[in-house]
């Protein structure tokens, strides 16, 4: 058996084993079902909400917010990163400020965005875009900064024009590290969108979870949780696969 398959089987066994234990604990009432839904019940509620309820629509809303935030953060992040690289003094000065901003708990400033944009998806998109653009900008600057000078010399010796140099030398060289920033940014956007939806009770899946908790619908709370975890896991898997493709 291949090593990868064996590891996958072990992971599957571990996850299914843990879920079976929880299932048994809830069914045998070792855990009060008033507080905890069994995994099967959660999946059942999730399925019924996806097929007959509005969970599918809410997932689309979440995906829309993620896509908008990603678009804004990619465009602005790439531009800012390029400028930080192009103008060294500005780059050296603002990279540290951006890193400091990134490590501060800026998500707590969400009420400012609610006042500015109203209690709408726009507030979530705006704040999440900030989360996404900082890693994109920092990685873009770093990517351009660390292009192998030999590649540039080869380009110069072949008398490439500035445009050809950018298209055939710089762009392929910077794509993988920029994609790493993009991946990091997307991960932050995902976390920020889902977290803010829950806290602010606006938008998609996060709002569903919050409303279910408010109504004390235990089955729906766990279904929402499973939905959010699945969405995060699927997203991360897709990003990881895309990164492998870009790095090839």
């Amino acid at each position, binding site marked *: 058996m291949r090593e990868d398959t064996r590891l996958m089987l072990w992971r599957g066994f571990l996850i299914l084993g843990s879920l079976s234990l929880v299932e048994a604990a809830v069914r045998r009432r070792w855990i009060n079902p008033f507080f905890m839904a069994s995994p099967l019940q959660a999946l059942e509620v999730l399925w019924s909400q996806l097929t007959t309820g509005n969970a599918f629509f809410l997932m689309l809303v979440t995906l829309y917010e993620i896509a908008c935030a990603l678009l804004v953060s990619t465009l602005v992040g790439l531009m800012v990163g390029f400028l930080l690289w192009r103008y060294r003094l500005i780059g050296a000065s603002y990279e540290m400020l951006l890193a400091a901003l990134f490590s501060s708990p800026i998500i*707590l400033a969400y009420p400012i965005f*609610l006042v500015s944009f109203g209690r709408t998806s726009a507030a979530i998109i705006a704040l999440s875009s900030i989360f996404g653009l900082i890693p994109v900008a920092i990685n873009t600057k770093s990517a351009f900064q660390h292009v192998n000078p030999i590649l540039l010399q080869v380009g110069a010796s072949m008398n490439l024009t500035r445009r050809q140099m950018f298209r055939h030398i710089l762009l392929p060289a910077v794509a993988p590290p920029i994609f790493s920033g993009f991946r990091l940014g997307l991960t932050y956007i995902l976390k920020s969108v889902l977290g803010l939806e829950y806290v602010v009770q606006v938008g998609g899946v996060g709002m569903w979870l919050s409303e279910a908790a408010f109504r004390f619908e235990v089955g729906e709370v766990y279904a929402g*949780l499973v939905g959010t975890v699945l969405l995060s896991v699927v997203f991360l898997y897709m990003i990881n696969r895309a990164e492998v493709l870009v790095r090839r």
Partner: protein
Amino acid sequence: MNELRQVGVAAAQRIQTPAGVQALTVIALVVVWEVIGRTGLLFAELFPSVTGILESLWVYVSTPVLIPHLKASLYEVGGGLLLGALCGIPLGVIFGSRRSFMEVMEPIILYLAVVPKIIIFPIFILFLGIGTGSKLAVGAIAAFFPIVLLTIAGMREVRPVYLDVAKTLGVGPWQTATKVYLPAITGFVFTGLRIGMGAAVTGALLAETKIAKAGLGFMIVEYYSQFRMVDMYSLLLFIFILAAAANWAMKRVFSLLLPLPRSTEDAGVFF
């Protein structure tokens, strides 16, 4: 005249350094904000004057108005970090001690680390109520992931040759743990604790903004709902300064205890 020119040139050179540009940017931002705040040029409610914000901040610092909330938040963040470390370090050591464990567990933890921890809050409310316990739990789970992942990373850094040497010297399990593993992972664990603290602050305070009876996060939302923007801005500033100071203090203490670890991958994603 010549001296004046020299002073001017020296000042210009000083400004043309990263620190100079940073200082200039901060000053310019403060001045522009103050002008907007005083003149009401742009959304008077949204941009209160900087002096107003600083006055409000002074009230927080000089009076006991925030003490009960600060206590609640410190309890949740400190307790969360402690609980996260108590679970994360031993589990990181266990998962990192064997290659097979690491290969099975690490991807599962990495995938779970990306899930926003705040969404588990309703489950903690079900089990622990809306008191400080549920926020402490969110802080703990937020701190757990960077700590466990960096402990695993530290365990991975232990070179097999060190273990072989220890075996050749007939060293027992206790000595192997304290003389080989501990020095290798301490730097990583410290970094994990520092990042974990940031995660615990964000997790616990964000949970406070959702449902709470006390805490700094609770106060932010209180001010927001009463539209006391000046107080809200100053409280946010107070939290940012506090978080930065705690981060700096931890960094300083750990750097005194140990040199920096050789590799500290960006674990910010696990916040």
